């Protein structure tokens, strides 16, 4: 049977004009662009940038100009990395590393501006279409590689299980550079439905008026969206045209899922809980609305065309119900692998299955629920870090290094004779993973503690390794003297003062970096500002730093976990 997802002609962007004069993009209070007009505009942009295989970094926002540019680049056959505007130094680092041929800038109120950087073309795999930032490792330029087949199959699957048709009209609530937001765009274009483009938030006055006036039928939300709706007291039942709402991007508390499930059933609309990862373009599972009230903690069933399997530690498939194992996913939407350098863009490393790192169980009714994370993942400051990956990175500096950790610190046990490399290693890992250096504890451990079967005893290693806070206390006076007498201390004071005064841009690598800098060890759990002992004394500094880093702060940001705030900028993960 031919794979219909594999031909760009049969794609959501290949022939937009087939939907004729149906509305495609609607600007609130402004123009409506039909599919025919969108097709023409996208093709004109494709001609402007030229056909072929170029690497394009594109600032993508919820407006006609940048969406047209995005579709134009796909039509032209280029490989696109969509990114939110205002990427600052981080975006510049990405451009310096990957040397794209074109950068398409987003200009408010006018066409997108194309910058030809004149770079020599890098090798691009013929199937490669999209590059998205990964979850975790936020400080490092790492991409998920997605093919046309990956994104088209996932868009088709979403159309299928959400029962989308050309009469749907979604209001935008997420940035399209975020994999979840992008999937909303793709799936609606795939079925000839319309999108109302706005940057307004559900908490903005007028958002729901806009929804009503334009007779929208759906919206997508992350847990924060639904929390804000609940806090605002707005009753979704007032929306006569609402047909469904979707939720992804993190776990919504079971009580909220149940409440929304019962509310939607009573009011005649559907509420979908979904699960996924950017690595799956992004959707992996969905919970049929009729099960949401009785199984509010479940992620549901695999999307059409996909399969979910659970594996135990020995790598064996778990057949029994209610037995936890690592959730792995197979389907046409599984990525082509990661890219950490331009060279990796030429290859296809599609894994046979996608190992999510999440622990799940299958219930007797066939629904899956997430019950935890695999032990080799930790979440300091809410950022998912793969300890195997850290171990591999550390091994490049100190072969034989072993890594363990928990949500407050990452311990790198080094082989004998590597004392001199500790400082450089810590700095490198901190920069690579976008975490404050104090999270990493590099220590020579020789010999390594082992279990009776000869395997490394990670638990003993973690327990036995010096606690960084205790160490700082014990070593305090000596450390204090050595710091305040070093010339570097005074240079750093000058740098910090210049940054505070705005004489140079302060370089924040992550939300965790900001919280660690202002709130110290109390922020290491990855909790919200309020949970990390933040108060009115530190509030102004943290809020200004966050604004600088994120661009704009959402309301009630102080109660959002660090990972959710990070998602507002990078928006890499789409659970």
């Amino acid at each position: 049977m031919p794979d219909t997802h594999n031909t760009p002609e049969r794609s959501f962007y290949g022939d937009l004009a087939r939907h004729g004069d149906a509305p495609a993009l609607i600007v609130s209070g402004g123009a409506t662009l039909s599919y025919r007009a969108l097709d023409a505009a996208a093709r004109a942009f494709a001609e402007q940038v030229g056909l072929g295989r170029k690497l394009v970094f594109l600032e993508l926002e919820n407006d006609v100009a940048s969406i047209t540019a995005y579709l134009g680049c796909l039509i032209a056959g280029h490989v696109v990395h969509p990114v939110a505007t205002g990427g600052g130094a981080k975006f510049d680092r990405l451009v310096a590393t990957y040397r794209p041929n074109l950068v398409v800038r987003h200009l408010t109120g006018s066409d997108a501006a194309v910058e030809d950087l004149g770079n020599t073309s890098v090798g691009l795999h013929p199937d490669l279409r999209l590059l998205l930032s990964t979850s975790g490792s936020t400080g490092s330029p790492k991409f998920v590689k997605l093919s046309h087949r990956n994104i088209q199959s996932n868009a088709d699957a979403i159309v299928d299980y959400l029962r989308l048709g050309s009469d749907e009209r979604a209001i935008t609530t997420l940035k399209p550079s975020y994999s979840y937001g992008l999937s909303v765009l793709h799936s609606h274009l795939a079925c000839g439905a319309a999108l109302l483009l706005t940057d307004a938030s559900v908490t903005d006055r007028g958002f729901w008026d806009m929804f009503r006036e334009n007779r929208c039928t759906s919206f997508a939300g992350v847990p924060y969206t639904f929390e804000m709706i609940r806090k605002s007291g707005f009753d979704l039942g007032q929306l006569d045209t609402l047909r469904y709402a979707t939720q992804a991007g993190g776990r919504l508390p079971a009580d909220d899922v149940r409440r929304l499930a019962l509310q939607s059933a009573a009011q005649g609309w559907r509420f979908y809980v979904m699960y996924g990862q950017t690595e799956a373009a992004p959707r992996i599972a969905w919970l049929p609305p009729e099960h949401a009230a009785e199984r509010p903690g479940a992620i549901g069933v695999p999307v059409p065309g996909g399969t979910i399997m659970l594996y135990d530690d020995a790598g064996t498939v778990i057949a029994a119900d209610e037995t936890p194992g690592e959730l792995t996913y197979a389907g046409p939407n599984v990525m082509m692998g990661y890219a950490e350098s331009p060279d990796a863009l030429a290859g296809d490393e599609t894994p046979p299955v996608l190992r999510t790192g999440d622990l799940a169980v299958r219930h007797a009714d066939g629904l899956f629920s997430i019950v935890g994370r695999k032990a080799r993942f930790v979440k300091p400051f809410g950022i998912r870090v793969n300890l195997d990956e850290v171990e591999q990175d550390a091994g490049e500096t100190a072969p034989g290094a072993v890594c363990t950790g928990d949500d407050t610190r990452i311990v790198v046990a080094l082989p004998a004779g590597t004392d001199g490399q500790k400082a450089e290693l810590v700095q490198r890992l901190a920069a690579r993973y976008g975490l404050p250096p104090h999270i990493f504890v590099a220590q020579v451990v020789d010999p390594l503690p082992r279990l009776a079967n000869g395997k490394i005893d990670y638990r003993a290693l973690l327990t036995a390794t010096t606690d960084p806070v205790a160490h700082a206390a014990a070593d305090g006076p000596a450390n204090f003297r050595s710091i305040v007498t070093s010339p570097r201390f005074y240079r750093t004071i000058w740098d910090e003062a210049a940054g505070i005064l705005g004489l140079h841009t302060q370089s924040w690598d992550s939300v965790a970096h900001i919280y660690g800098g202002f709130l110290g060890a109390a922020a290491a759990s990855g909790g919200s500002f309020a949970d990390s002992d933040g108060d009115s004394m530190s509030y102004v500094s943290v809020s200004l730093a966050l604004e600088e880093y994120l661009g704009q702060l959402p309301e009630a940001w102080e109660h959002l976990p660090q990972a959710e705030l990070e998602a507002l900028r990078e928006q890499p993960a789409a659970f």
Partner: protein
Amino acid sequence: MSNLLHSKSVDTDVVLRAIAIALVAWNHAIPSGTKSLGLPDFAGGMTLLMMMSGYSFARFVLTDATPVEVRHGLMLFAKRILLPSLAAVLFFMLIKRKVSLTELLFVSNWFTTYRIAIFPVWYVQVILQMMVLLLGLFAIPPFARWFVAQPLRGSLVVFAAALATRMILPVFIDTKPLLHHLPHLYLWNFTLGWLVYFLHDRRTPGALTLASLAILASGAMVWGPLSYQFLALVVGGLLLVWKTRMKLPMIVARVVGLVSQATFTIFLLHRFFFVVYTGTVGRILPAGLLMWALGLAACTLAWVVGAATLRAYHKLAAAGMAAAVPGAGLSPARTAG
């Protein structure tokens, strides 16, 4: 440079903090009796600041909190105010070569309006004593459980009781000689911030209107509608309620951000700066507006230096901490330490 003229959206909370502390400094730079300068004194900064403190406290500590978390938040807040204030009090006692036990214990507001410290220490005393009062209140399990379960209703009850205390008690006990600088008489001001926050959090027009009415009514009752305190409280409070963010030219936003971050440093140091200024350059340069502006700038700069030093130290300590663990391998003795 042109970027500095672009507008930037700023949290109203940040702007109001800067305005409030600037008003406090203004009131001390241009006190009553110097009207010959042609500039009005302007009390009210402290009143606005106190409400903002309560607002922030509700936002960061009382929201979705357990009784234990509230008590922890109260203690943490007290500690963060106490330590720098104590250092400042000791510093002023040292340079003035005078000691007052009641001032060192932050209770002199109950006995006298005289103070050795050259900053409005009464404000710190009132805040610290309010924290003790509230700790006692939240140590009562049924009350604490009831409050955290319904913080809006709880805030309303505590605020109403505090306002009644403020209005009724001075009728029977004359606290005017102490300028009413007592915790139970300022609790209304702090808990007004709680009430405003929880009403604002509802975001409905009705709740926002109620918050506005609470500000107007309590301000008028305590200060009278023709006072600067009332004006500062009402203008600041209504902005906080109805305008969550405001657009400012980039350069103004930057200055406001700096002053806002430096609020507590300005609070502690501005009067000392005025004393030094008056005794030195004040002999040739005018006081008033210039002294006020230079005072704000100098205190903000002092904060910048302090903050930069702390950040630099933490940065290097964190890097050193992770790298400096001796590499002798694991032994029972080391792990025990």
